């Protein structure tokens, strides 16, 4: 199977060569063989010894072709694709960001202290849409693009969660 790692250009080839015992495996990564012993495994994470070194991995989030892990305290994203998955993957991915997108989302949880725009207002990228308070700090949420405020989803006093849509800017 092929893997792509966050921040790394190279594509990695990884596979199991054989199962040595109940919890020991011989695996091959980029043509080099490694011995892997599983100490604990469940769908949340694994403790394992790779070539006599202990590692701890947490599987944080999994989608079909992408997984976020925290390995020995370092978090990174792995794209997994067998050859078949490859094309599918290229055309999906995370489309919910960037200036092509209409939704303005909150990147933090908090309470809405004030709303600075009205529906129908024409605003520019960087204009303050509303102000949130969280942990006693006030944070301005600014528009990610130029456009018109379409669907204003919050008003003063509301609580919002991380990733909640605050407004649509078209």
């Amino acid at each position, binding site marked *: *199977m092929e*893997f792509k*790692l*966050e*921040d*790394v250009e190279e594509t*990695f080839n*990884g*596979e*199991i060569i054989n199962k040595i015992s109940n919890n020991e*495996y011989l*695996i091959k*990564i980029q043509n080099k063989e*490694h011995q*892997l012993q*599983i100490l604990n*495994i469940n*769908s949340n994470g*694994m403790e*394992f010894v*790779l070539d006599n070194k202990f*590692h701890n*991995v*947490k*599987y944080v989030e*999994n989608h079909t072709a992408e*997984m976020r*892990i*925290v*390995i*020995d*305290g*370092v978090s*990174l994203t*792995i794209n*997994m694709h067998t050859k078949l998955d490859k094309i599918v993957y290229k055309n999906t991915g995370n489309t919910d960001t960037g200036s092509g997108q209409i939704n303005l989302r909150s*990147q*933090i*949880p*908090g309470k809405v*202290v004030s709303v600075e725009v009205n529906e129908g207002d024409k605003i520019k990228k960087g204009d303050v849409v509303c102000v949130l*308070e*969280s*942990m*006693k*700090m*006030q*944070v301005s949420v600014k528009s990610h693009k130029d456009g018109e405020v379409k669907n204003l989803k919050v008003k003063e006093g509301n609580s919002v969660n991380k990733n909640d849509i605050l407004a649509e800017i078209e």
Partner: protein
Amino acid sequence: MISKVLIANRGEIALRVIKTCKALGIKTVAVYSDEDVHSLHVKNATEAYHIGEAAPAKSYLNQEKILEVMLSSGADAVHPGYGFLSENDDFARLCEKNKINFIGPSADSMNLCGDKMRCKEAMLKAKVPTVPGSPGLVKDADEAEKIANEIGYPVMLKSVYGGGGRGIRIVNTDQELQDGYETVTAESIAAVGKSAIIVEKFLEKTRHIEYQMCRDHHGNTVHLFERECSIQRRNQKLIEQTPSPVVDEAKREEIGELVVKAAEAVDYTNLGTAEFLRADSGEFYFIEINARLQVEHPISEMVSGLDFVKLQLDIANGEPLPFKQSDLKMNGYAIECRINAEDTFLDFAPSTGPVPDVTIPSGPNVRCDTYLYPGCTVSPFYDSLMAKLVTWGRTFDESRLRMLNALNDFYIQGVETSIPLYKTILNTEEYKNGKLTTDFLKRYNIIERLEEDIKNQRNDKQIEAVASAVMYSEFFQSKIKSSNTTNSLWKSLMD
């Protein structure tokens, strides 16, 4: 003699106070909001009382409700911790009226310390140097602008009711001053319901160095050495250490004598902190007194060998200090990292939510004061400090290496933390060489260097990451497929 202490606080500081009280055989009364019913301070106190809703104004700031619990539980003293009511002189006065021993300074002294203008006046009288600025409150933005032009930009606008990085702005031009004046006013009103602003010269490349004050009810005053707290973000401390790399024995004594004068000038009792700004030229300017136990008190405990909460209780009991200044010697080096729930890359925005798993570092000369436990929740209603990680060493480098090691061992699942940032800072040559300033992060491009470090760490884990993915797909992806096809009986049962 104090026999039962109500702790008008939550989180790690409530736990910290409980630890010492328990060790001394003093009963403790915890109070908690709806949000905190599962918190450790509820579990560890002798008794625990519910005092209201999650929002601080409805619980931890509700003086009447807290007084009610004090009276019904039979507590004879109250420890305010830091934040919340700790520097509210109305609350201190309410306790005094009800014959409850408030563990801290008198209401009058607290009122004086809290009024930055009158406090500054008292210091000038006592010949403790302060930062150039407005002689008192300014009445509006225009007066502020006039003074700014007299002392020269940059200047700092500061609400006398602010604190902890709120209600404070640095401005460089008349226009920025006018805007900043509004913001500072708004933040101060949001925090405490009132605002009053002073103007001060903003000194560049400064260090924040503070001294622990200690004074009993018999007029005995000592200082318990300095703490350097220059590593900050948005005027909030991140990393503290003692001794400061720029304070030698002579300087320690020189400023220490000013600190004793400062405590006497405001008739301070119990433990408190005198904060100074140290200009790059080496001069120290008094800024303010924090009339409470500080977040960063553990590093001073480590180098002095004193238990500060015990000392607070002894002083509150009317005991004279059991030592003179000459009895006190600094022993070794200590560092504290404030482990915050925040996203460094999102301009330190708060990160809250459940923490399913946590590993708390431990070991020789490692101390971690925290409210975290596996399964706890970081609440958006309170501040972002989850843990204080403190290490001690015979040398500065020993304490620094221990800290790095402890940071590596600290695992907090579910929220973003400041741990990676601290690892980067502690590894810089600037930090190692004690080149500290309050704008350390910006001055040395720390965020960019953190990004680089994270990239390198990821590079070092390539083989391990691929191995993890290989095993995951072996164990779970194939199994999910097979369960989808073969376990149709179960599937239909569960639909």
